[in-house]
């Protein structure tokens, strides 16, 4: 469980990026932190594994305050996948890249081997085991970065802008993957402004603006509330927009799921025909 209490954070250049943020992320929860650029989303999640320490307030992970321990110790439980895979790939082969963190955490060689094979398999990278990560495509590099974090099986997974530069198929794979992690009881936190992706996943949504949390709740509520979204410069998901425009037909407004939308439209059609 991650608990942030009245977290303030000031960068060395005196920019106050967080102005009193409080949030509890429960174990096994799926959370999306949204907001426009510069809202403080990335700054906030960097507190979850101790990369940044609050200027005031406190953040604790499983009861341990982040100021009282090291990033390496926290990282064992909190995996963090950065936005740009090129900021972390450095090894000669994909295999070594994935083994890097495992070696840092002091896993035994045979366990490292086993974990690498598992992670490669999980993200469909087995064929690239001996390839240089620099020769892979953008999407594949992103998967290697993800695999290199998943390899040590952290309880919490933080994904910073996981959908940027990914085609629809990759996004779908990622979504299914997150669902899979959920069934294993893992906590997943994503930082994103991809409304469509969030609409499909339907996690708990936290909206941030100028270093503060402005709204939080289930996706269906937040993503269909035009006033709240407009405040954070986020556009409604397309399905929500349609239902918003069709509301005078007596259809419900808070729809973001495509299957639910289909059902409602078919129902409406049926009732119309039966009349």
């Amino acid at each position, binding site marked *: 469980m991650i608990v942030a209490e009245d977290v303030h954070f000031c960068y060395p250049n005196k920019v106050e990026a967080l102005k009193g943020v409080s949030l509890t992320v429960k174990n096994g929860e799926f959370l999306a932190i949204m907001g426009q650029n510069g809202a403080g989303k990335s700054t906030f999640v*960097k507190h979850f*594994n101790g*990369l940044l320490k609050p200027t005031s307030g406190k953040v604790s992970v499983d009861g341990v305050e982040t100021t009282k321990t*090291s*990033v*390496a110790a926290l*990282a*064992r439980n909190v*995996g*963090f996948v*950065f936005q*740009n895979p*090129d*900021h*972390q*790939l*450095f090894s000669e082969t994909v295999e070594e890249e994935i083994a*890097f*963190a495992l070696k*840092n*955490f002091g896993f035994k060689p045979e366990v490292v081997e086993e974990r690498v094979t598992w992670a490669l398999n999980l993200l469909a990278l087995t064929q690239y085991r001996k390839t240089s990560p*620099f020769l892979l495509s953008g999407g594949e590099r992103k998967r290697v970065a993800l695999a*290199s*974090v998943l390899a*040590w099986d952290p309880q919490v997974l933080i994904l910073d802008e996981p959908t940027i530069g990914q085609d629809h198929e990759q996004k779908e794979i990622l979504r299914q993957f997150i669902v899979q992690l959920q069934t294993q009881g893992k906590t997943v936190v994503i930082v994103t402004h991809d409304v469509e992706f969030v609409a499909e996943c339907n996690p708990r949504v936290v909206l941030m603006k100028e270093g503060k949390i402005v709204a939080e709740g289930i996706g269906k509520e937040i993503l269909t509330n035009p006033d709240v979204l407009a405040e954070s410069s986020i556009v409604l998901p397309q399905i929500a927009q349609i239902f918003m425009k069709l509301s005078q037909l007596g259809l419900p407004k808070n729809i973001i799921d495509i299957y639910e939308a289909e059902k409602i439209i078919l129902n409406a059609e049926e009732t119309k025909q039966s009349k």
Partner: protein
Amino acid sequence: MSVFDGLKFRKIHSPIHDLDPRVKFAYVISVFVIAIIFYQIIPLLFLFVLQVPFVLLAHVQRQWLRSLRGAAFLAVVIFVVNVGTDYFTSGYAVTAANIESAAALTLRFVVLVESFSVFFLTTSPDHLGLALEESRVPYEFAFAFTTAVRFVPVLAEESQTIMDAQKARGLELEKGGFLKKIRNYIPVLIPLIVSAIRRSLELAEAMESRAWGATKKRTNLYVLKLHRGDYALLAITVGLLVAAVYVRIYVPIPTIVHLLKIKNSAFTIGI
């Protein structure tokens, strides 16, 4: 990134910022030369103090102090190495004169750092490029130079992100002995270099698609012209250089030890 901050240009107006970059560069180079030709502490102290009015006029005290703090570690190394070598070469004794000469050499380094720091703090990369161009350096080189300077803060920021990304994978940069610590930086350096190369290729493509180099003869929006202040600085520079060469050749410079009449009664460190 304190060292980079000590060299990072910020656009403000001051008599020093508005000086012609060529003249400023000539001044920095002559300070450099003077610092090199003297090895006594008194002229080096003079050179050190000489920079202070420039810093105050340019309102860059804070950044300037930061660059000095950044240089402090190397300065200490230089001092220790010098005292150490003297200790071993002069019969296991540390004399006041030894310490003075080590201090002088350290001060020389500090003078070099501070004068370059003032120069970079008060000269915009654009002006620098312009100065290079007007000194008949081919435009391609001038452009490459200014671009390199401009990308330093970008790279500094990027290296911070990379360090974060690797720390998040359990890398402990400060762990281990001296050699291990250096090896710890490999996972930071490789992504940094790779992304710098990638960025430069992208930049080249972006520039070519905007017709870079289409005309052979370029004109500039701003043209450098010498003003009164520039002539004043030029006069100071030439005066300093001439005076320094004169002093160096004809005037014997006493050491502080000599002035204080400390007898060279070598206080030997007990073994």
